[in-house]
């Protein structure tokens, strides 16, 4: 016991649950994953954050052994796919795919029991159903469940084998806020019991709440990596001013705005169909920056169209890096 405590006390490098190097996957002309390096530590909840089409699902499916990479190396739980122990590896991972439709005609309990039968180890069926709070629905057909209940059942099926490593691909996409909260609870419980999680999402608040670390992906690459708080802090600001101006003003000059007091950065956001160009100012002191901005615009004789301010989030990190919104894809 002593020896163990001592060795932890010396802070060895955290053990790795999953590592990939120079991962590449192409579908014809399209490069889905473009030289990805990643490391997930044992016991952490790691988030892959990015817009649709960033390559998150392809990456996760390579990790899950469902898709073969064109090149690169993946090691999970000290093993590799295709090295003769795929079966052993599958025993130790849990998977919830993006939008799996489980068999409609089976009941919740029958579905969990079926999945449980595939794994040599794992919890008791009742226990797993309780874990995802579906006790009242245990006799209900899968086809009759709500979206949130289906998703919790999918997570239950991922948990039946008491996995060491859990993959959740967009687990809460399309769910209402309450269903999302319930699912987060399941994930947090698994994490608290010592499990390692890799989840993908395009919801910043989900990543910020659940993940110890996130990698922001875009075009098959990691463009930022760190704890959610660190990434937000890297903006060098805690407030964001977003504004747009009436169209007759044309493009604004960036330099004068950047020089305003309290402003730490600026970025023009690409126009979308709904909105024209808007501008994002990252500011450290909103009380100073906002009056200065208004005075500057008035001095230039530019009319404001819209202006909002908010606390900086991971979304702003993404916008700051790419000029696009996460959800715009």
């Amino acid at each position, binding site marked *: *016991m002593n020896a*163990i*405590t001592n*060795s*932890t*006390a010396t802070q060895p490098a955290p*053990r790795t*649950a999953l590592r990939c190097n120079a991962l590449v996957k192409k579908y014809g002309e399209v490069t889905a994953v473009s030289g990805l390096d990643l490391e997930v530590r*044992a*016991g952490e909840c790691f988030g892959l954050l990015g817009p649709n089409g960033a390559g998150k699902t392809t990456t996760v499916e390579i990790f*899950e*052994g*469902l898709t073969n990479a064109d090149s690169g190396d993946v090691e999970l*739980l*000290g093993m590799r796919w295709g090295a003769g122990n795929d*079966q*052993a590896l*599958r*025993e*130790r*991972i849990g*998977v919830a*795919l993006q*939008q*799996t*439709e*489980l*068999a409609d*005609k*089976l009941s919740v309990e*029958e579905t969990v*029991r*079926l*999945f*449980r*039968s*595939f*794994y*040599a*180890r*794992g*919890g*008791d*069926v009742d*226990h797993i159903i309780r874990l995802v709070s579906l006790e009242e629905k245990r006799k209900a*057909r899968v086809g009759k469940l709500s979206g949130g209940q289906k998703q919790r059942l999918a997570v239950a*099926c991922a948990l*039946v*084998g*008491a996995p*060491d*490593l859990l993959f959740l691909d967009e687990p809460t996409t399309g769910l209402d806020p309450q269903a999302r909260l319930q699912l987060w609870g399941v994930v947090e419980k698994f994490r608290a019991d*010592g499990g*390692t999680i890799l989840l993908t999402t395009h919801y910043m608040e989900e990543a910020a709440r659940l993940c110890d670390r996130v990698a922001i992906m875009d075009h098959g690459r990691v463009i930022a990596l760190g704890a959610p708080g660190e990434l937000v802090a890297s903006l060098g600001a805690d407030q964001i001013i977003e504004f747009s101006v009436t169209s007759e003003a044309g493009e604004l000059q960036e330099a004068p705005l950047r020089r305003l007091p309290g402003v730490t950065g600026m970025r023009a956001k690409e126009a979308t169909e709904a909105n024209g160009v808007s501008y994002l100012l990252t500011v450290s002191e909103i009380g100073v920056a906002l009056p200065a901005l208004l005075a500057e615009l008035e001095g230039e004789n530019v009319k404001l169209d819209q202006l909002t301010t908010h606390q900086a989030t991971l979304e702003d990190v993404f916008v700051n890096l790419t000029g696009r919104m996460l959800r715009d894809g």
Partner: protein
Amino acid sequence: MAEADQNLLTDVVTGSLPESKNLGKRTHPLVELTLARVREFARQPEAVFWVFGFPLLLAFALGIAFRNTAPERLPVAIESGAANTAETAAAISRSADLQAVVMSPAEAAQSLRTGKVALVVRSETAASRGFSPGFDYRFDPARPESRIARLAVDDALQRAAGRKDAAAVREQTFTEPGARYIDFLIPGLIGLNLMGSGMWGLGFVIVQARTQKLLKRLAATPMKRWHFLLSFMLSRLVFLILEVAAILAFAYFVFSVKIHGSLLSFMLISLIGSLAFAGIGLLVAARPRTIEGVSGLMNLAMLPMWLLSGSFFSASRFPDFLQPLIKILPLTALNDALRAVMNDGASLGASATGIAILSAWGLVSFVVALKIFRWQ
């Protein structure tokens, strides 16, 4: 905290788990998978109808259409207009096998074309022939009943004209049980149904599971892939007994069709046939991504057997050069083996070749399906 971390790390690295994580009892995956198949099927009322209801309706309709009645008289047309028309018609009607109908030449030609009469008789007067009265027979030699009518009409007219039989004959007639059309039909329907339910029952379920990514999800579990495929074949066995029993009971009570051989042999052949078609069903469903795709392939696989395998009429009617091909079709092998037991009372050994053909189809299809199966 540190200790908990350390425990976790050993867990992750060695895969060992605290007792609390290893509570669950589990049933054998093959049992669970087969149960899932059976439940999914039984919970689809429309599938249940197509497997059980449809063949019964078909057997009923065909049984009624081809029911055994007293042999019918063959209708024969006599062209009106000749002087001796009435005498000719009377002579023909004296035959127990024929029924004479007098009609105009145009009407007669029309009736012959549409199959309402088997043959048309025209009296030739002495004037038009230049010698004693004679007859013209018009008929299609490709129609068996027309050829019978020709013989019977000729016999009746020659006797009427004064021909004497040279030898005395005696007739003994009997109807053998098991030789009626319905006796021939029932084993064929069972064969056809085993093929249809084996292939449709599997194909749709598999392709649907593929389109909704359920197969992909299963591929991410440690489930043994052959367990999954085998569960489809096993689930077929559950339904097989019901399917075959339903048709047999129906045929027995409605048409008094009996099994002359052993029921056990009959069920055993049904079982092997059912497994063979489940194997072929798996193979057909191994790759397609859409319901349309698998439907096309299913029809392509089944159509030749619908036509050639002798479910509704004997396959021996097809030309000789096709026979080797017909013989190796699984449905032919199944139909022949079922009929051997049911109608001829043959032993299982008599159908050894057929059973071997069926087993080969089942086994090869299963192995190939497992190899080429598309999981996503």
